[in-house]
């Protein structure tokens, strides 16, 4: 019985393989050390370091990510019976599955799990900062908590949750039965929990978790205790997951669009993920490189970042930000796509300036690669780089402005249905405009010299990533919840969630602009007495933001179990994912859709986006027809 379980892909085999992996690493470490006569032969940190790299691969093998490929490679018969496709019970969500809809939900749920953990850490940070002096944690733990907070929310929440939403929605939107590489898709997903768990486990490491921020600047990260290795290696897995998914999206979008789905008939979410995937594929290898160099410095005594060994400290920052600035757009462009979908559908109007919306995404992709050193205006790099980087950074405001103005113009004269997804979308526009404006201010070198590394930066990034990305994520989750679950969420709780978050988000982060300019540095567990009042207010407000997420959690869980049935198209949307049942059939479409027009032809009498070959001649109803326009 047990032996049979261990032979089957799944959690038992994953556990067995993981243990085997640790033993192999122990053997490798001690064997190599003995062969090279290193004393002592057993070194715990060496075993741990190697295990971090290798045990995840054993785990992924055990859970079943490689079975099909290994079987094929070894010349045995492979059966394409779709046995691992689709979920028949909740248990199937805990297995390797090739259905993009299952993977999408796996992504989203796992990402939100880490969002709640990361959010909890933010609560601890604010508890510590509620008053000057030491409240709960020592400085080492504090540095660890804010580092893990940022790392989890960036690498395990914002980036993957967008990949999750896109995973679910994009194949449906473009009329494809699945992603181009379903098994690669499964592998991409399973690397995520590996990375997240590794980051959390770092708290158990001798010397505490990694504590050098999510930026992990050398030489601080090179000299740090072994907990740092959990960051450098976890990021490799999260990055590999990102890259594989991005390739998958690119191939899917380029090759698997339904007949008639030209590029300029694609919904903007598809454009957004196409652009994001370009960014990921080009940029993410750079963070992998930066972290590999840190590993080599740490574990093998390379001197990439050691000046006394001929290394260069600033090089780390250049390589790191060459990824991590585009990463800001990786964390934002999919959200732009979500907002375009929500606004058009809920305002009952075509997205204003569709082509410019698509082109501005591509412009941001291109410009995004030319601005990385604006994170380094005070880093000590050559002075002359500052002005060109300031100019390129400021130029990004132009395509971003085009998007904001076009969204507002989409609202103009629509029939605005101010429900939960729409509240998040409009809230996003206001918050992201603020974040964008403080971004332009930060691009201005003379001001940046003063406010860089202060709470002004903390305020800016939270306006962009919380008021920006997270608001779009909430908009998207509420918007596609009926499609994913077949049920409606509770609208009143959704609105309550929005208003609580919106109000207390602003009370939390707006004052940070002020204390930053006044001189409070970031990443500190203690601060001067003069900042005490604002910090207390910020902490109290942040706790309400934290509590408001529980309303969201409750709403999602209860509605998923017992919400009212949603129907195929509760929003009366034109795009293809809404023309199939909720949730969609196992291979998405019983009949192949043909795209016959643009995705947002609201208000055009009789307009449809797609028709289904075998469907009745009358296309699926799409509340088009009457128009509220002429009266005005």
């Amino acid at each position: 019985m047990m032996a049979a379980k261990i032979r089957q892909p799944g959690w038992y085999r994953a556990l067995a393989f993981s243990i085997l992996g640790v033993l192999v690493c122990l053997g490798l470490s001690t064997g190599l050390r003995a062969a090279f006569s290193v004393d002592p032969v057993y070194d715990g940190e060496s075993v741990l370091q190697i295990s971090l790299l290798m045990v995840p691969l054993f785990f992924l093998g055990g859970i079943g990510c490689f079975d099909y490929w290994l079987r094929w490679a070894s010349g045995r018969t492979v059966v394409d019976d779709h046995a691992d496709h689709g979920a028949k019970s909740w248990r199937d969500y805990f297995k390797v599955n090739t259905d993009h809809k299952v993977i999408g939900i796996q992504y989203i749920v796992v990402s939100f799990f880490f969002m709640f953990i990361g959010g909890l850490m933010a609560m601890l940070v604010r508890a510590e900062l509620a008053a000057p002096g030491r409240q709960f944690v020592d400085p080492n733990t504090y540095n660890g908590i804010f580092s893990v907070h940022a790392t989890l929310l960036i690498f395990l929440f914002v980036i993957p949750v967008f990949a999750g939403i896109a995973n679910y929605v994009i194949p449906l939107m473009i009329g494809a039965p699945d992603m181009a590489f379903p098994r690669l898709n499964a592998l991409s997903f399973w690397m995520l929990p590996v990375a997240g768990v590794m980051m959390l486990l770092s708290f158990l490491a001798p010397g505490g978790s990694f504590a050098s921020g999510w930026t992990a600047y050398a030489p601080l990260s090179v000299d740090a205790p072994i907990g740092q290795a959990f960051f450098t290696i976890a990021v490799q897995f999260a990055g590999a997951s990102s890259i594989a998914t991005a390739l998958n999206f690119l191939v899917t979008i380029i090759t698997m669009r339904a007949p008639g789905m030209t590029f300029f008939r694609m919904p903007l979410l598809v454009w957004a993920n196409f652009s994001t995937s370009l960014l990921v594929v080009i940029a993410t290898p750079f963070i992998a490189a930066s972290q590999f160099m840190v590993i080599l410095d740490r574990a093998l005594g390379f001197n990439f970042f050691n000046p006394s060994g001929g290394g260069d400290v600033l090089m780390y920052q250049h390589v790191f930000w060459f990824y991590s600035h585009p990463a800001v757009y990786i964390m934002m462009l999919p959200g732009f796509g979500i907002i375009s979908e929500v606004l058009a559908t809920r305002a009952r109007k075509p997205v204003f300036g569709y082509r410019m919306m698509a082109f501005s995404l591509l412009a941001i992709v291109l410009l995004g690669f030319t601005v990385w050193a604006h994170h380094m205006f005070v880093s000590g790099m050559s002075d002359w780089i500052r002005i060109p980087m300031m100019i390129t950074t400021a130029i990004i405001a132009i395509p971003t402005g085009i998007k904001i103005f076009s969204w507002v113009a989409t609202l103009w004269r629509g029939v605005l249905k101010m429900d939960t997804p729409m509240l998040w979308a409009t809230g996003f526009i206001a918050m992201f405009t603020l974040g964008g404006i403080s971004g332009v201010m930060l691009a201005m070198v003379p001001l940046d010299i003063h406010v860089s590394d202060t709470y002004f930066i903390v305020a800016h990034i939270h306006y962009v990533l919380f008021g920006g990305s997270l608001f779009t994520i909430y908009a998207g989750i509420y918007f596609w919840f009926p499609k994913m679950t077949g049920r409606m969420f509770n609208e009143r709780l959704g609105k309550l969630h929005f208003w609580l978050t919106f109000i207390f988000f602003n009370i939390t982060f707006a004052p940070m602009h002020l204390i930053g300019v006044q001189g409070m540095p970031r990443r500190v567990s203690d601060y001067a007495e003069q900042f005490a009042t604002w910090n207390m207010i910020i902490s109290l407000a942040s706790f309400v933001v934290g509590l408001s997420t529980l309303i969201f959690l409750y709403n999602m869980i209860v509605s998923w179990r017992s919400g009212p049935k949603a129907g195929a198209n509760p929003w009366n949307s034109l795009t293809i994912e809404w023309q199939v049942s909720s949730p969609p059939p196992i291979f998405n479409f019983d009949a192949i859709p043909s795209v016959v027009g643009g995705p947002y032809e609201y208000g055009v009498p009789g307009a449809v986006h797609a028709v289904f070959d075998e469907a009745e001649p009358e296309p699926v109803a799409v509340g088009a027809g009457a128009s509220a326009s002429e009266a005005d």
Partner: protein
Amino acid sequence: MTAKNWIVLLAIIVVASVIGIVFMLALSWFPEQGSNVAPEIDTFWDVLVIVSVPIFVAVTTVMLFSIWRWRQRPGEEDLDGPPIHGSTKLEVIWTIIPTIIIAALTTYAAILLVDIQAAPAKGTRVVNVNGVQFAWDFETQTADGPVKTAKLYLPINEPVKFNVRSKDVIHDFWVPAFRLKVDAVPGITTSYNLTPTKLGTFDVVCAELCGLGHAYMRQTVTVLTAERYATMMAKLTKASGTPVAAAGGDGIGEQLFVAGNPATGATACGACHTLAAAGTTGVTGPNLDKELKADNASAADIMEMIVDPNKEIAKGYSKGIMPANYATTMTKAELDALTKYIYESVQGKG
């Protein structure tokens, strides 16, 4: 949209922008202006605020107006809006206007930056700023040789150039009142220059995460008149060989405990530690009354804790926060006096 609607909308934007700008400018954003650069940067900020507020106000007002004017009312559930796909004219306008604003702002910023980073005149006073986990020391050249201090002293209205270096990880030398900062990077020397313009004492802050004690890497800079600066430097130069203890007499231990010795860079124990006899209430480090009594620490133990603070750490506290440089910043006589003072205070004989 009637003409009246347009006028109302425009009026709201103008009024709200004015209110927003007045409010934002009325807030006390910056710390006091301590250098020649500060007024320029503060003015630049005001310009940025004046440009930014109307953009934010315009976007949100048009959005809120749309929501107010065109939100779905009962009976409109099945209606769609008009199929407006875009307007090339509008799109050109909202591409060109931001471009002009961006061009103007970057030009202003570039001119200001060139001004700020202009090379200092020859013969400008140089202060070497050295960052180490977790303290700064400041080395000034005087006629009698270099003087190293834990507190930075500068003369008012005289240009100064800071050469910033690090001995371990990246730090960042920032005086908020001066408005300028630069990273202290291992392996290279970074610098900036400015002219202090205000008498007084200002905070020196480390702005780049440098490890455990990052939050506590806070010191001060005192700007003095030229005469007082000269006197101070003469005193410090003389003192640097034979610091406080040379003065002899009682009370040296207490003085060191409460105030440290700025002349040599020895930071004050009382800034971080509570000791009833000295009247200090710091909570960064262990409470000496409690901890030393509980340990029944001898004078020799105390001496070791001062000189080698990382050897043994009190429960609940972390290594690497207390400066480990007291053996070099204090003379043997000073260490003896300090140890004696702490020992006797804890034992209740002080």
